[in-house]
């Protein structure tokens, strides 16, 4: 399950934020009559469609897994836990519909209405992500229900959805999605430029994506700081994991690196009192350690170490990315142009990977940091997991399938890229740069799900009712 979720969360940034970057490109194209930007937007919309389709398949499997792996989570708490998912359903539908409209609308709608038809895709992405994060937040800080004899007897839907962890978790996740999408897209074009493809098209691609990411990065560090303080106040056990703190005390040092062995902190660099200052703006701030967690639900040393190191990795990655954003900002102020030095491009080319690492480690912090609970204080993971069948067998199958899907996705995207590059060489050779900003004739011949069928639009009876 963790594995599937880890895969699925990688797709979120694309459904959500990639479409936004696409719209920025589209806006630039329409507003400033920028052909390169328009072409980028159009190609990005197709990539988005492919990724969205993969996301839909992976989402289907997730829904199955919910029941097959966590029957008791759903069985006992579906009444509350299911609500955010039902809401997510609407947004998923909306996003699928408008992504089709948007892709279909190239050429068929006037530029401005077409641009507007992309806006609901972005909004629905925000809504959908927020709903799923609401479900996650609810597992961290459950509320909005009354339990009697282990059964949920009353539910307050709004309190379930807008639970106490909702705001900080969802804003943090939304921004993370924009970062990952921005840096990943930028790194693709930076890699292309490093290989010598330095025409304007690549530069615009890099520029748009990197600008989005660089603007969001400082905001993310700010909300990350806020979120951590919320965790300090509301999720004390998780905060103890994060800070690698066995015993409650004040003047808590911030430990960088380090592991927990036999309940004691080993290795790692300690910055005196920094954790206390960060959490409560004063060295006297008391932080609850793991000793406040009842022994029977205290996380094991390995779990604590995992959470702590993931948190460190996330923060380190974020500051690396912040550094890159600053570099970009300073260079831009000086020269009003994209820095094109090899070292800059190399850093941008790796930034995508760094951003994904930050996303995944952040996810580990919130998920593993909750253990041994599935729903904090209500349901233990060992009680929620299925007892039917051999868990390892199904896990193996899931891993195999996802590896296959993952590789195929990358492969398809690479083929699309190769196709487009071939097309560029051809146009340049022919000296025929298309000037009207409309669809390049051969650009249509890549079929994407949700897109218009390429050779001839085929009226399908099923489309109308789906």
């Amino acid at each position, binding site marked *: 399950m963790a594995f599937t979720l880890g895969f699925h969360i990688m797709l979120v940034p694309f459904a959500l934020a990639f479409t936004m970057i696409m719209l920025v490109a589209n806006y630039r194209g329409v507003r400033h009559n920028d052909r390169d930007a328009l072409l980028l937007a159009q190609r990005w919309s197709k990539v988005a469609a492919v990724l969205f389709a993969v996301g839909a398949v992976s989402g289907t499997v997730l829904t199955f897994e919910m029941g097959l792996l966590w029957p008791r989570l759903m069985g006992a708490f579906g009444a509350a836990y299911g609500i955010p998912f039902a809401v997510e359903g609407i947004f998923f539908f909306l996003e699928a519909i408008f992504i089709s409209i948007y892709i279909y609308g190239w050429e*068929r709608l006037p530029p401005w209405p077409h641009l507007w038809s992309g806006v609901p895709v972005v909004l629905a992405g925000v809504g959908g992500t927020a709903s799923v994060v609401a479900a996650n937040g609810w597992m961290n800080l459950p509320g909005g229900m009354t339990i009697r004899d282990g059964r949920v007897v009353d539910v307050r839907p709004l309190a379930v959805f807008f639970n106490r962890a909702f705001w900080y978790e969802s804003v943090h996740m939304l921004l993370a999605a924009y970062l990952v999408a921005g840096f990943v897209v930028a790194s693709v074009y930076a890699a292309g430029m490093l290989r010598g493809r330095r025409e304007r098209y690549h530069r615009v691609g890099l520029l748009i994506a990197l600008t989005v990411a660089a603007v969001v990065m400082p905001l993310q560090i700010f909300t990350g700081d806020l979120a951590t303080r919320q965790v300090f106040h509301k999720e004390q056990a998780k905060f103890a994991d994060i800070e690698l703190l066995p015993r409650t005390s004040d003047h808590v040092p911030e430990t960088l690196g380090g592991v927990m062995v036999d309940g004691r902190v080993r290795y790692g660099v300690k910055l005196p009192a920094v954790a206390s200052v960060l959490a409560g703006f004063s060295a006297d701030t008391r932080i609850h350690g793991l000793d406040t967690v009842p022994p029977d639900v205290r996380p094991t040393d390995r779990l604590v170490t995992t959470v702590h190191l993931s948190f460190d990795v996330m923060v380190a990655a974020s500051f690396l990315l912040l550094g890159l954003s600053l570099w970009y900002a300073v260079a831009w102020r000086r020269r009003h142009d994209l820095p094109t030095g090899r070292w800059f491009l190399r850093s941008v080319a790796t930034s995508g990977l760094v951003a994904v690492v930050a996303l995944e480690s952040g996810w580990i912090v919130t998920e593993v940091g909750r253990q041994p609970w599935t729903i904090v204080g209500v349901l233990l993971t060992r009680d929620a997991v299925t007892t039917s069948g051999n868990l390892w067998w199904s896990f193996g*199958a899931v891993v195999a399938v996802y590896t296959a899907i993952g590789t195929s996705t990358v492969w398809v995207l690479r083929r699309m890229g190769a196709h487009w590059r071939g097309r560029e060489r051809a146009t340049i050779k022919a000296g025929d740069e298309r000037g009207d900003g409309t669809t390049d004739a051969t650009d249509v011949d890549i079929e994407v799900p949700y897109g218009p069928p390429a050779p001839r639009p085929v009226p399908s009876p099923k489309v109308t009712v789906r």
Partner: protein
Amino acid sequence: VTDAVAAVLFVGVLLYSVLGGADFGAGFWDLTAGGVERGRRPRQLIDRTMAPVWEANHVWLIFCLVVLWTGFPAAFQAITTTLYVPLWLAALGIVLRGSGFAFRKVAVRTAEQRVNSAAFAVSSVVTPFCFGAVAGGLASGRVPAEGGGDALTSWLNPTSLVGGSLAVAVCAYLAAVFLIAEARMRHDNELEGWFRRRALGASVVAGALALVGIAALQADARRLFDRLRGPGLPLVVGSVAAGLAALILHRRLSPQALRVLAVTAVAAVVCGWGVAQYPYLLGTHLTVGEAASPHPTLVSIMVVLAGALVLCGPSLVLLYLLQERGRLDEA
């Protein structure tokens, strides 16, 4: 409200069996279309008609699962802890199907194409069989209310086997009928005949399986059998009538009318099952009311649904209009 949510859930099942069914059936014909050369043209038609919607229809499946686990969590738990084998197979099938179909188009070499096609086609048969078997397990009361029922007999039993086979046959039938219309639209008489013959074959097989099913129900799920003769009777009769009408009049009717008849026949059978099963969700031991979530949850499901209708309805219309216009532009 409980009944309303149950009805909504059932509508989801109905839509999935008709729309998703046609999808699966297309895979069945793909599988049986013969060798590379012989099967090329039918496969092409299947490819073209399915491309725009290849997994959109599975949205209904997700819809059903979400409504089930939110609205009737107890039943959901019982089902997933008992029938986990067919459910895993079905999930695997859906993934393989989707990716096989999507990727075979970009695959260049014949060997690659063959692997992808095989994945697509085989899973198109396995998945509906599993869903049919699950339905059989539910109908014949082999899922205990507290879950954890027998992992094998819950879906390897007379009712499930008939249910699974019937599901495959029905899917094949629906797909063939839909594809007749597609072939007609393309003025391809040869292919139209090809699918017409197969639609007839499938309808005969499905009818025969339905008869076997009735016999199996009599022995295996007595209450369901009785209810099908009682309140469910009009639906059963309607299904038989629509099926027979389609069989007899297939030459004279337009493909559209044929399609309506086929959908009616299938939908009536599914509705018959629903009516006969009501008010029980599992066999004869867990009613809809007993499995339901607290009232506010049910209300919020309905609110969410209303929201979905208000938001998605107009946007779907917009998409449809655009597609119509696009088609006119290129015609």
